[in-house]
């Protein structure tokens, strides 16, 4: 049976049809798997973000997305794609606690994406969580594996700016001890926070005038995250 195929050249129509059918079946399979995994993937991402926000802002158990539109910070259920967004963290009574600010920038190997908690009243960073990084395992990945380093960001002054110093020499409230052997990655984290802070500094309202917590349908918030 194989021999007959090899001797007689099949018509072009047959070749085209074979590829078309293969493509069609493959397309249906891909759409199927995409549609069936999408809810899990979105839910995973939303949960990761919520957990990260609650982690970098101690005492927070409600959050909402905030974007800067027409000169002020407004609450949105679902931010536009690629629109810069910060998350406002509120306690049980709906009192404003702080912002969770996402930032990203070049690390040692690839982009580092992180989230840090910022209290505008005291002007301090109260927590930092790495969301995405491909830093060297064993060295650069200490930016999230080394608890001492992560703890440096639990009460860090952003005035005038955060400075990374050699390990063991940090004493001022705005100094971070770098990780030995991962200086570039540690400096990258500090730089990303500084840059994000500068970028938002003008857009955040004066302390005390933060947007209030608005109950938004759980469904739309989930989708927005």
């Amino acid at each position, binding site marked *: 049976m194989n021999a007959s195929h090899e001797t007689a050249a099949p018509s072009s129509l047959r070749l085209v049809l074979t590829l078309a059918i293969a493509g069609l079946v*493959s397309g249906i399979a891909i759409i199927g*798997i995409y549609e069936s995994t999408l809810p899990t993937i979105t839910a995973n991402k939303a949960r990761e973000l919520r957990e990260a926000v609650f982690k970098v802002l101690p005492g927070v158990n409600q959050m909402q997305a905030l974007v800067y539109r027409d000169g002020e910070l407004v609450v949105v259920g679902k931010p536009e794609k690629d629109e810069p967004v910060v998350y406002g963290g509120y306690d049980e009574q709906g009192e404003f606690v702080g912002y969770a600010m996402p930032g990203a920038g070049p690390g040692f190997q690839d982009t580092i994406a992180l989230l840090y908690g910022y209290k505008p009243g005291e002007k301090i960073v109260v927590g930092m969580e790495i969301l995405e990084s491909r830093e*060297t*395992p*064993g060295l650069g990945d200490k930016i999230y594996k080394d608890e001492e380093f992560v703890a440096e960001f639990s009460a860090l002054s952003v005035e005038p700016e955060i400075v990374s110093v050699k390990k063991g020499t940090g004493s001022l409230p705005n100094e971070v001890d770098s990780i030995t052997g991962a200086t570039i990655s540690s400096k990258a984290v500090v730089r990303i926070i500084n840059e994000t802070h500068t970028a938002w500094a003008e857009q955040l309202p004066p302390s005390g005038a933060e947007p209030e917590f608005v109950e938004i349908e759980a469904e739309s918030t989930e989708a927005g995250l």
Partner: protein
Amino acid sequence: MKKNESYEEFIKGIWRDNPVFAQVLGMCPMLAVTNSAINAIAMGGATFFVLVGSSFLVSSFRNWIPKQVRISCFIIIIATFVTIADYTLLALVPKVHKELGAFIPLIVANCLILGRQEAFASRYPTRLAIMDAIGMATGFLIALLSLGAVREILGDGALFGVKIFSENFDPWIIMILPPGGFLTLGVILLFFNWFKYKKDEFLEDVAEAERSGR
């Protein structure tokens, strides 16, 4: 006889024709994702799924696929399985998916998989093709795992994330950096070839002895 045949197809991928140690195929994921044992297993598992799935389809449809468009058809089949593996990993184990990053979609370009379709699955019955695919994929998984385990133990002092040395162990960090991959692979290949050389020598000696004995 029939059973032996499929067993032979299975076992050859694990040792004699091991895709990594004997054929030196699939070097890109081999060197890139073997910095820890768990990554090696996830990569090996994804490759296993893609290889066995596409070998099954290619072998089942081998009489319907015209020779002139076979490579395109193989690629369509492989790419579909890779996409399925990609989304499944992303949904079930997002952390591992993040670590493997671009290397999951790149399974499409793994010459081991296309090579098996062209050289084996498109010429043999489905049963043998599946045995061949399982053997090759297992061989690939074993190779990935041995490299990943050696590199994680030496470079991080841990295996599957569990520390196995005392605090005094100073991790040999170069092993989890790219050069460590080349070093480890080189040493393993050296051992493999040395073993093969010794085995051939031994077989020759046996043949010699038999001849002179007669």
